[in-house]
């Protein structure tokens, strides 16, 4: 392989065939396609589901394949808020502040049954599901959820993003 001269085509002989010269698409679809593969998650990790979050981020399951692997540790740089674990009543104002700091477009994932509905907690201390205080786009139940479920959740969220309306698309673009 090494030492073998690579074929160099002279520029004059290269002719355009017409294939893949242009594609047609909807502007909405283009923005959705771009956004669904560049999810920057902000992990709001409060409890034991974090172990599963680490497993799903690590090489065996690898959320990088979906473009959702690089966690941003500032909500201002993130567009996917992952609530991983139980949220207590005392924590709720912090979660709300984090959510409000995120710029549009933003999506919220309830990771695990505690974030989804409070799970087996029903008492003075814990919030019965984060959707009581912020809107949620995708729920992943399980205690903790299997990595396959998380990946399925990410793929469904990508589907939602791809089919959704994107406000960046207006009459100027």
């Amino acid at each position, binding site marked *: 392989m090494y030492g073998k001269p690579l074929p160099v085509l002279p520029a004059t002989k290269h002719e355009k065939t017409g294939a893949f010269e242009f594609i047609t698409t909807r502007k909405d679809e283009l923005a959705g396609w771009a956004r669904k593969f560049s999810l920057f998650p902000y992990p709001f990790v409060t409890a034991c589901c974090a172990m599963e979050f680490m497993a799903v981020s690590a090489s065996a399951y690898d959320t990088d394949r979906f473009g959702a692997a690089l966690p941003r540790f500032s909500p201002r740089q993130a567009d996917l808020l992952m609530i991983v674990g139980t949220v207590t009543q*005392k924590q709720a104002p912090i979660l709300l502040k984090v959510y409000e700091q995120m710029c549009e477009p933003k999506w919220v994932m309830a990771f695990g049954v505690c974030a989804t509905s409070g799970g087996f907690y029903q008492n003075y201390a814990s919030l019965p599901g984060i959707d009581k205080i912020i809107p949620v786009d995708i729920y992943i139940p399980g205690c903790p959820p299997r990595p396959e479920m998380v990946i399925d959740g990410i793929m469904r969220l990508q589907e939602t993003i791809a089919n959704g309306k994107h406000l960046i698309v207006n009459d100027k673009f």
Partner: protein
Amino acid sequence: MTALSIVSKLQQSLGAFGQTSLAHQLIVCELEVPQFLAAVETLKNTFAFDVFLDVTAVDWPNDALRFEVVHHFYSSTNKIRVRLKCRVPEAAPVVPTLRPLYGSAGYMERECHDMYGILFDGNDDLRAILLYEGFVGHPLRKDYPKQLEQPLVPYRF
């Protein structure tokens, strides 16, 4: 002193303050509130109980003396543990603070006050430690409604 003689001496001297018994090889002493501070001072000064393990309470809703305040101590030189129990009524759930004797007692007394509403006489810093400001009631009391939530952020629905 062998370990056995320390235990018997300890049991003997705690007997002066209240009724002693053994539970799971742990010396338990049930005493009245007025004797409490003297008993702890004896534990600390005579028997080298240098570690304050925890303070909690038990709620007996049908009893006249409703709350049982439970203290645990550990001696790192003699390697023994002691449990002190004293009963207090609901109207005046007061036991003396142990902050002057054990620095770590302050935090655990705050937690006990959060959960059961026990007042620690002499501890003027019983702010909420696990609960939040504005929380009404004491959630580990038996008469706290099990599903009563006191949200800090208003619910969306």
